[in-house]
């Protein structure tokens, strides 16, 4: 027993000496700190939490605080027992509510992303092709809503979309007989997402279009290429990086959106972010909420990787 302890001490000392030698050897303690401090922070507060979420997603719910059974229990002498319970996941697959919420989130986010692209591309194109004096002002105008509260901008739509709201009043003035029901519908959710995320689409598109070499388009026109064809075969492929980055910046957060469906959507516009919120805050079922989070992450892993590759390519293009 004593010997083992001594041996452990010696080993620890050896490791310490090795580490300090390495540090001195680098003569770059500063460099290590520059990359080490943010890495450690993100490991502790970004990566480790996901492991805990997974752990809790496979444990049983119980009453009390925290409302889940511990994953590791000490059975008998010192034999650790690992108890995994995938029932929470099975529950997600069996219950139509969760399946619909997933499907609805992906469809809603996908359609909203497409609308954002269709509105955002001409806008980004117009800004990139405007006179330099105008360009900065227009960019500033795109970014200004981003700096004002997201919550309040979504809230603004409540007053506009209500049956007795501004839009319906205008429509009835123009001759509509009955007000349109717009608030608490899926339409309002689409509108809210497009409205809130449009700047995220425009900015990467603008960067890509602005960098486009115009002589290519002139060459195509000289060779008799029609503008539409030139746009599809030159402009779109060359701005692909911006399109991908913009679409991912809209699609991924939109899948998990909570505020917009909660404020503008109706009871049937279920989205997965809202389901997670309600499992957690209303039902206090932490294990199921964790399982929902892990399932959402699995859904988003591929889009997130596409986004990171696009980011990497853009960083590379700068050099």
């Amino acid at each position, binding site marked *: 027993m004593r010997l083992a302890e001594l041996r452990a001490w010696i080993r620890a000392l050896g490791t310490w000496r090795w580490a300090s030698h390495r540090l001195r050897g680098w003569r770059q303690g500063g460099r290590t700190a520059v990359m080490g401090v*943010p*890495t450690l922070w993100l490991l502790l507060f*970004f990566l480790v939490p*996901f492991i805990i979420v997974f752990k809790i997603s496979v444990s049983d719910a119980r009453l009390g605080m925290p409302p889940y059974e511990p994953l590791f229990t000490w059975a008998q002498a010192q034999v650790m027992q690992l108890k995994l319970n995938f029932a929470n996941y099975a529950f997600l697959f069996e219950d139509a509510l969760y399946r619909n919420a997933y499907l609805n989130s992906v469809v809603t986010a996908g359609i909203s992303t497409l609308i954002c692209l269709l509105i955002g591309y001409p806008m980004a194109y117009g800004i990139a092709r405007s006179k330099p004096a105008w360009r900065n002002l227009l960019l500033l105008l795109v970014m200004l*809503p981003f700096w*004002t509260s997201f*919550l309040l901008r979504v809230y603004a739509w409540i007053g506009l979309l209500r049956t007795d709201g501004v839009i319906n009043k205008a429509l009835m003035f123009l001759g509509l007989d009955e007000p349109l029901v717009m608030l608490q519908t899926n339409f309002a959710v689409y509108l809210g997402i497009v409205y809130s995320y449009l700047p995220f689409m425009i900015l990467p598109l603008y960067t890509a279009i602005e960098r486009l070499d115009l002589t290519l388009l002139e060459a195509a026109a000289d060779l008799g290429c029609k503008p539409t064809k030139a746009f599809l075969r030159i402009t779109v492929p060359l701005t692909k990086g911006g399109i991908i980055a913009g679409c991912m910046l809209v699609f991924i957060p939109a899948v998990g959106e909570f505020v917009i469906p909660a*404020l503008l959507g109706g009871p049937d516009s279920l989205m997965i972010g809202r389901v997670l919120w309600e499992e957690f805050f209303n039902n206090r079922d932490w294990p199921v909420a964790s399982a929902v989070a892990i399932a959402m992450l699995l859904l988003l892993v591929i889009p997130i990787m596409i986004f990171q590759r696009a980011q990497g390519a853009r960083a590379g293009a700068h050099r």
Partner: protein
Amino acid sequence: MNARKSVFVLTMLVLGFVFLYGPILSLIIYSFNESRLVTVWGGFSVKWYRELLQNQQLLGAAWLSLKIAALNATCATVLGTLAGLALARFGAFRGRALLMGMATAPLVMPEVITGLSLLLLFVAMEQAIGWPAGRGMTTITIAHITFSMAYVTVVVQSRLAALDESLEEAAMDLGARPAKVFFLITLPIIMPAILAGWLLAFTLSWDDLVIASFVSGPGASTLPIVIFSKVRLGVSPDINALATILVLIVAIGIVTAGIYMQRQQKRRDLDVQRAIAAND
């Protein structure tokens, strides 16, 4: 660009900006409405502003949000600048891919996932080591730093990537140590990016509802949490007044920054012209 296409692009631009600014404008107009019914115009009045200034709950929440946002922005800027520096200047070091992945993932990670995972971490830490005891300002600040430092990292990294390394190399060749090079050369050049990062981190924290709701405890309600609980019950005119004040502050700040940047640019252009003239 042919004429038809330019008309289309121009129309989209105009409609797009109307779409972006219409709702904000309606918030501002209705904040001066005398009537409590948001849809009926009851004449011009500033009574909702007066009511707002007497609402202790909202003012207290705003003060808490301000403290958290400032603390968060400062810490996130330091951490994000370090990460951006490592990613842009250190070449291929071990763990670069890991840092790159962890630094860009929070940009797109749905807030409900970040919020839930951090809450579970805080609960597990409290059970294991007794810290953080309870949840409140500390846990909200830590959570905000974690997701907003990603934005600072991207801003600083892309500024550094666009920057010529020759100035730093010249200083190094003249015998300056890395730390000195950073503080005398790199830092002043990337200062605008760092300031932009600080402001971005501040705004993200000031606006955040979802993550703060997960990791806050009793008694620590930030401004978005209070606004959300009010707004959920329907439209209330004092929230319109609050929105107007916030939009005004942001607009003044951005216009000031824009004018300042334009002046700097003009001065720089003038310096370049003078230098060229002096050489001739």
